[in-house]
């Protein structure tokens, strides 16, 4: 391991913030430092407003189309066959019998209608919401260019910047649509200093992401757990 070490502090445990009792080996491990920044207001957009990306909803549309096609096609075929003096298919008789004999408080009717209503709500949700939640709209600097950054990619950029801060051992970034939560483990330097460095590095990185709505930033730094 060739990790950079501060020669002065390499042999003794660093003072840390928080209620750390002196002497205890585990006590210093519990210390942590955190900060939270609200999202900055959306910057000026010379190329027009950057709205959400709207999904084409091709897959649900294809599925619904196939279901309608299948149902209408089979019914049409059977009706035409009966018109041409062939006997009706068995399923049509049993369906007609069921429809005419099962009362509305029958458990199958209730279950079926509940399922239909739930499916309908799901389709309405698909029709009305933009989808593509993983694609964060970027600022529109050039007219005619709409860009979106994958949420995982944005998280990776933040992680790459964060691990370059001295004293940071490893970083986990959780990227939501509004907020980036960065959890870093720091094995040397004062936690507050590391966190201050992380704050400045990460806010620069959030600017580099060039998102239309820059996410808020929440930074937590901890000591790594002692290995047994």
């Amino acid at each position, binding site marked *: 391991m060739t990790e950079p070490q501060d020669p002065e502090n390499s042999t003794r445990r660093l003072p840390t913030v928080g209620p750390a009792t002196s002497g205890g080996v585990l006590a210093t491990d519990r210390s942590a430092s955190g900060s939270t920044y609200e999202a900055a207001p959306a910057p000026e957009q010379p190329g027009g407003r950057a709205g959400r990306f709207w999904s084409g909803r091709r897959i649900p*549309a294809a599925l619904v189309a196939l279901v309608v*096609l299948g149902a209408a096609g089979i019914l049409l075929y059977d009706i035409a066959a009966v018109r041409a003096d062939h006997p009706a298919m068995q399923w049509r008789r049993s369906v007609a019998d069921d429809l005419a004999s099962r009362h509305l408080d029958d458990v199958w009717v209730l279950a079926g209608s509940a399922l239909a209503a739930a*499916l*309908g709500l799901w389709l309405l*949700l698909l029709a009305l919401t933009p989808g593509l939640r993983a694609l964060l709209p970027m600022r529109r600097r050039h007219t005619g*260019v709409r860009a979106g950054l994958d949420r995982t990619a944005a998280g990776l950029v933040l992680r790459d910047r964060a691990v370059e801060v001295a004293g940071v051992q490893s970083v986990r970034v959780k990227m939501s649509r509004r907020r980036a939560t960065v959890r870093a483990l720091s094995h040397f330097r004062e936690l507050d200093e590391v966190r201050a460095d992380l704050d400045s590095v990460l806010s620069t990185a959030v600017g580099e992401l060039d998102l239309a709505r820059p996410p808020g930033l929440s930074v937590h730094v901890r000591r790594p757990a002692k290995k047994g």
Partner: protein
Amino acid sequence: MIKTANRVLLGLAGLVLVAVGGAVLATGLGLDVPSWWPWDGTDDVLLSKADRTRWRDEGWWWPTVIAVLAVLVVLALWWFLAQLRRGRLAEVLVDSGDGEGALLRGRALEDALGDEAGALDGVSGAKVALTGRRTAPRARVRMLMEPHASPGLALRGLSEGALTHARTSAGLDELPAEVRMKAVKHRAERVN
């Protein structure tokens, strides 16, 4: 266009399902239903024999049923096939300025754009597809970012470089583009 159609049709299908399912559910659970409700109460059935055969002897009944079903089949088939079409442009009309146009193969412009975008700093690869009409094409760009690249800079490079070059070389007034960026998955490491 297909995006709007998809959403309208999905919404319609959802509304029908919610209305029918909800109406049956409300009746089946024994809620008080108004008098115009299609079902009377928990003792009613979904579709009685009398209801089903009400118009069977009328001359217009079967032709109407068959026509409605046939229209439904054709519409559903069109809707399904429309999902499979990618709407990719085969050629772009280049205005050469002397009154005669020239045709540029869409693939050629796509490849040129993709190569230039892929050569940008911090971009490990790019795929471009042209859509729209041949007089007014639109570009769809997928970019894969390398580790440690800055998305903002890469986007600026694409807009001011590759997209502008493609627009001027094809003699287009504008080339609207939709760019989606992803990143190569990689481990965290320090760059010294």
